[in-house]
């Protein structure tokens, strides 16, 4: 029978569905009997889902234009150090 410590060590691979069928069975047996671990595993899975689906940290507007402007003014071999924050 797996311990809570064992479960925590395997949790990353479990969340990524990267465990063997045998280990998955053992992990799920533990989760069925251990409420705190079940809560941690379920909410960790929800955390991954939330982050994956929220589309956070989109690019700043006009980023391509600003990069291409630096490249056009600097040209290959001559870094444009006049850009924002450089």
């Amino acid at each position, binding site marked *: 029978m797996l311990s809570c*410590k064992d479960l*925590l060590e395997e*949790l*990353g*691979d479990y*969340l*990524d569905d*990267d465990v063997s069928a045998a280990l998955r069975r053992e992990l799920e047996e533990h989760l069925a009997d251990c*409420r*705190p671990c079940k*809560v*941690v595993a*379920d*909410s*960790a899975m*929800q*955390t*991954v889902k*939330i*982050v*994956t*689906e*929220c*589309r*956070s*940290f*989109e*690019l*700043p507007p006009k*980023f*391509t234009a*600003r*990069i*291409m402007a*630096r*490249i*056009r003014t*600097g040209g*290959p*071999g001559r*870094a*444009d150090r006049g*850009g*924002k*924050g*450089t």
Partner: protein
Amino acid sequence: MEPPKGSPPVDSPASNTAPVPMEAVLRSDPDTPDVKRAQAGDLAAFEALVKRHGRRVYRMLLGIAGNEADAEDGMQNAFVKAWQHLGEFHGDSKFSSWLMRIAMNEGLEILRRRRSKSRKALVEWDAEDEERFRPRSVRPWEEDPESQYSRAEMREIVEKEIMKLPAKYRVAVMLRDLEGLDTQEAAAALGLNVATLKTRLLRGRLMLREALAPYFRLKVRRVGEAGHA
């Protein structure tokens, strides 16, 4: 000649003398046509590469730097350096891997600059991972936590709490869960072995779980509250 500081870790020096690039890599890299045109001076082709990879580079730098201004500066520097050194790219790896290594160097440069103000940033980045993170919050979450907030509110909550994570955990979560790189790709982009990436990713996810718990865990309703709006 030694490459300029912060320049891309171009294909290994030996590859510069290799007469034939790795055809298998070139064939499997969807960026190859645009890279070849850009190497011939075609700015429109390079612009296509910027559009294709900009978000991934930005998210990695935001993960490392922890603020938008540094991330955008780092992103601009990374693409300018990629353009300047494109002639040294021989296709020994995918263009995206080469570009991410340039971006990683930019990220580390941001942390080095901060070291002059505070040693904390780079020391934290280089520190050994603590042995284990023990979850504290064990109250169940709402079954459908996303239904409690609008999409914009969810984005705001996630962005706020991700940005509070230490950089090395934040960037692992951002590359893997937000940007969708697989474990090997994320490890390669950050110059880590897979085991270290996995340790940091799990730690980051569990820390973020703790931070999100107050927003999403089951609310305890007092007797008499049920039914009220």
